[in-house]
Every structure is written in structure tokens, then in C-alpha cells.
């Protein structure tokens, strides 16, 4: 009873606003749009987007960006975490610099990466100063490019510290004692890493990586600033359909969001599986 009372504010807000929002998104995606006089159930929106090759390209692009960003961030985060732990003097300051961009809003990061990587950006100027290029167009296209290099660079820059903090937190536990035990039993540094450190890190890091994947998959601002005009990631595609003056596209915009939610739901199932397998 007391517990129910304590949980009421948070639960009611999450149920009304969050669950409510998702349910309303699903309802509007299947044709419940009283504001434009449509209330008939229909799966037209889903048929339209599934038949549209732009949707398939967007889904592919979104999955590609999230997968590559998450994989690179995870590997680098483990490396950075181990590196920071091995430092003796100045460890605190180093950890602070490492955490610095955790609180940096993503939009600021995206603007900064744009000014760093664009063809007239800082790196391009540095390449000129070194005599590598003579005009901006000689510099490789790294923003708004085919491989989404700029988008991935921004995500990696932001998420390495995010995962890295988790790595550092796990490493401050009794990990050191286990590693010392392995070493004293004759394990090589690589064997110790492979057989002791990595298995200890895996559950927490994997769980954090899944959050990063889901986050980058549903995020709008970074690909909007740093991505290509075509194909666009799913959230940008959904946003364009949603803000289109043609209200007939509303159902499709919401259907795209339901696809996002569907993919993320499967990730959560994977997440729970990971937690169950390793932590319990």
C-alpha cells in the first residue's frame, strides 16, 4: 500500500505520457485520425512504407549507422577504460577530461564535428597547411557523405566516454585481484585480459552497448545535421513525413515510428536475455 503510494507519481506519468504516447502512435499508424475525419482501421500506411524503396534504404542506413557506431564505441571504450585505469599519476584529471563530453548536448557535438570534418573544416585546413590538398574539394567528403562518416564520428565521440565510464566502474571492483591471481598462476597479459578481464566486463558493457544502439537508432538531431539528404535515417524520414503539410502522410509518419519502436522492443528482449544470462 505504502509502496503503491510512493510509486504513483512516477508510474502514472510514465503510463499516461510514455505508454500513452506509444499507444497513440500505433493507433494513428493504423488509421485512427479523427482530426482529419478518418477513423477506419487500415494497414495502408504499413503497406505504403514497406513497398517504398526509400523506407528500405532508410532502415538499412539506420541499422548500419547504429551497428558501426556501437561496435567502434564499445571497442574503444574498453581500450580507453583499461588505459585510464593503468595511469597512476594524474588519473583523476584524465578521468575528468574523459567524462567532459558526457554532458555536452548532442547538437553541440554535431555542430563541432561539422566544423571539424567538413571540406572547409579544421582538418581540411590542416591538410592544406601540410601541403596535402590545395582546394577544399580535394579533401574527402566526411560530412553528408555516403558512408555517414560524420554521423558515426559524432556518435563514437559521444558514446566512448558513456560506455567507458561503465568500463571504469566495473574495473574498480575486485577485478584487479582476479587479474593478479591469474598472473600469479602464470597467465600471460593477453590470456589474463581474454580469460579474466573481458568476461567480467562483458555483462555491463554489453548492456550499455544495447542502450547505445537503441539510442542512436532512434536519434534525430545528429543525422539531421551531419547526414545525407538521401537516403535519410528512419527518424529523419519520419520527421519529414510528420511535418509535411499533407496530413495524409501522418499515418505513414507514425508507422515509421512504430517500426522504430518494434526494433527497439526486440533489443530490450535481447537486453533482458543478456541480463538473465550473465547477472543472475
Amino acid at each position: 500500500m505504502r509502496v503503491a503510494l510512493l510509486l504513483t507519481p512516477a508510474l502514472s506519468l510514465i503510463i499516461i505520457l510514455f505508454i500513452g504516447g506509444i499507444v497513440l502512435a500505433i493507433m494513428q499508424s493504423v488509421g485512427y485520425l479523427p482530426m482529419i475525419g478518418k477513423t477506419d482501421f487500415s494497414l495502408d500506411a504499413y503497406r505504403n512504407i514497406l513497398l517504398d524503396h526509400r523506407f528500405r534504404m532508410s532502415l538499412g542506413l539506420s541499422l548500419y549507422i547504429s551497428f558501426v557506431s556501437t561496435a567502434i564505441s564499445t571497442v574503444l571504450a574498453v581500450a580507453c577504460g583499461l588505459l585510464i585505469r593503468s595511469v597512476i599519476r594524474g588519473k583523476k584529471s584524465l578521468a575528468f577530461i574523459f567524462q567532459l563530453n558526457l554532458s555536452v548536448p548532442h547538437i553541440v557535438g554535431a555542430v563541432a564535428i561539422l566544423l571539424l570534418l567538413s571540406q572547409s573544416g579544421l582538418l581540411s585546413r590542416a591538410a592544406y597547411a601540410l601541403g596535402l590538398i590545395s582546394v577544399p574539394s580535394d579533401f574527402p567528403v566526411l560530412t553528408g557523405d555516403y558512408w555517414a562518416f560524420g554521423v558515426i564520428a559524432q556518435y563514437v565521440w559521444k558514446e566512448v566516454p558513456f560506455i567507458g565510464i561503465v568500463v571504469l566502474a566495473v574495473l574498480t571492483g575486485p577485478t584487479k585481484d582476479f587479474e593478479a591471481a591469474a598472473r600469479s598462476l602464470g597467465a600471460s597479459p593477453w590470456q589474463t585480459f581474454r580469460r579474466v578481464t573481458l568476461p567480467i566486463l562483458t555483462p555491463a558493457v554489453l548492456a550499455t552497448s544495447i542502450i547505445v544502439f537503441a539510442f542512436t537508432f532512434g536519434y534525430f538531431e545528429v543525422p539531421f545535421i551531419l547526414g545525407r539528404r538521401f537516403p535519410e535515417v528512419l527518424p529523419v524520414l519520419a520527421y519529414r513525413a510528420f511535418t509535411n503539410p499533407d496530413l495524409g502522410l501522418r499515418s505513414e509518419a507514425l508507422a515509421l515510428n512504430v517500426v522504430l519502436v518494434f526494433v527497439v522492443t526486440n533489443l530490450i528482449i535481447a537486453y533482458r536475455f543478456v541480463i538473465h544470462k550473465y547477472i543472475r
Partner: protein
Amino acid sequence: MNSVSHPKTKLSISRHLKILAITLMIVLLLLPFIALLPWAFSKSWYFPDLIPEHFSLRGWRAVLAPRSRLIEGLINSTLIAGVVALVSTAIGLFTGRALGIHKFRGKRTIELLLLAPVIFPTIAVAMGIQVTFIRLGLANTLPGVMLVHLVPTIPYVSLVMGGVFANYDVQFEDQARVLGSGPFRTLFRITVPMVKAGLIVAGLFAFILSWSEFMLTQLIGGGSVITLPLLLFTFVRSDIQMAATLAIIYLLPAIAVLGLTARYMTEDSSAVGGIGVV
């Protein structure tokens, strides 16, 4: 002799490699800021100049000019993030207590439900709920925007306060009550002071999350509620000097919050710090 000098050289090589790796890490982390900063203090910064030729405050004058709507954005952002931080912290106090102290049936499901907004895309929530907010008259208003900002903040305050209450000793409250203290007195004289550091950290997280939020403000604010990220989005397309200048203004409170959080956080809870902003 050889066998002694050999591991020494090896050690020194690995030492150099380590210093190199650390330098590389710091440079890569700071490089985007280095690309951003000069734009806010230059008159014109044409390719291929590595350093701007003329120092200028044009960006600052343009951003501070009334037609840039900076003051409006600053007031709205601060007001929204401030109220959202206060309300979420109060909610977190209750939720954290329930999750940290009590054991009950369905606890894992409730925890999962409370954390779900972290992992689900806010864009789906924003687009789904927009029409209803318009119908209820909540769209295009500050309270409406504050209300939806609670969706991303509740998971974090619950997480932080749940952790705080997991290490909390309820017996102090029992003693206060035995000595004749009423429930409100106990709350404000015993409970709140004991979890103060946690409340501050939770509040700072909520502030940063609301401060960084774009999509919920854009769709629920409907262009009537202008905040700093919305202005930044417009400037990126129109005037890169103004964008860089605004980015710095927008960044400072975030960095300040990080500094403050570090003061109130012990080493083991620093893992939560990372979750602050995905």
C-alpha cells in the same frame, strides 16, 4: 646483464606507447571543441586559414541582438529545465524510496517500465502524443513542454534515487518517530538531509536532460516555445558564426553541471554519471 636490460627497454617502449595513446585520446576528445571555438571569435574565417585572421565579436553581437531571440530561448530553457529538475527530483525521492527500500511483487516489471523511456525513441512518443496535447490545449505552452520533458527525466532520477535508498538506514526515521517527530518533520529533518547529495545529483541530471532535449520541445512546443537547442538548429543552417557562439553559451551550464556532479558523487556511483546523457 642482458636479461636485466631487456625487460627494461620493453617497459620503456610500452611506457612511450601508453603516453602516445593517452595523448591521442585527449586530442581526439578535445579536437571538436578546438574546431568550434575560433568561429565564435572571428570576423571571417576563410579556407585555408588555420587561425582566423581577425579577432571579432560579431558572433556575440549577432547572438545578443534582440532579433536573434537568444534571451527568450535562454529564459525558456532555464525555466523549463529548472522546473523539470525540481519536479523530477521530488518524484525521484518517492520512486527511489519504493525501489531502494521495499521488496514487492512485480518489482522488476515496474523497474523495467520506469527505465523504458531511456531506450525507446522519444520521437515516437512526441509524434504519438502531439495531437492529444493540441486537443487538451497543452501544446505550444510552457507547462505542456515541461510535462513531456518528465518522460526522459523520470528514469534517471528513479535510478539515482533507487541507488541512494538501497544504502539507506530506515532506523533513523524510526528513532525520530519514537522521539515524537511527525511524518512531515521526519521527512524534512531526517530523510531529505540524509539523501541530500543524491537529490542534488538527480536534480542536476534532470536539468541536463531537459536542457539538451530537442524533439519533444520542437513537436510539443510547436514553434511557440523557443529554447536554445531550437535556436541552435536554425543557426546551423543560416549563420555558422552565430551557431558556434550559441553553442558555447549552450554548453557552459552543461559543463558546470558536470563539475558540480563530480563534487557530489562518490567513485562507485560514478557509473550512473555516464548514463546522464546517452
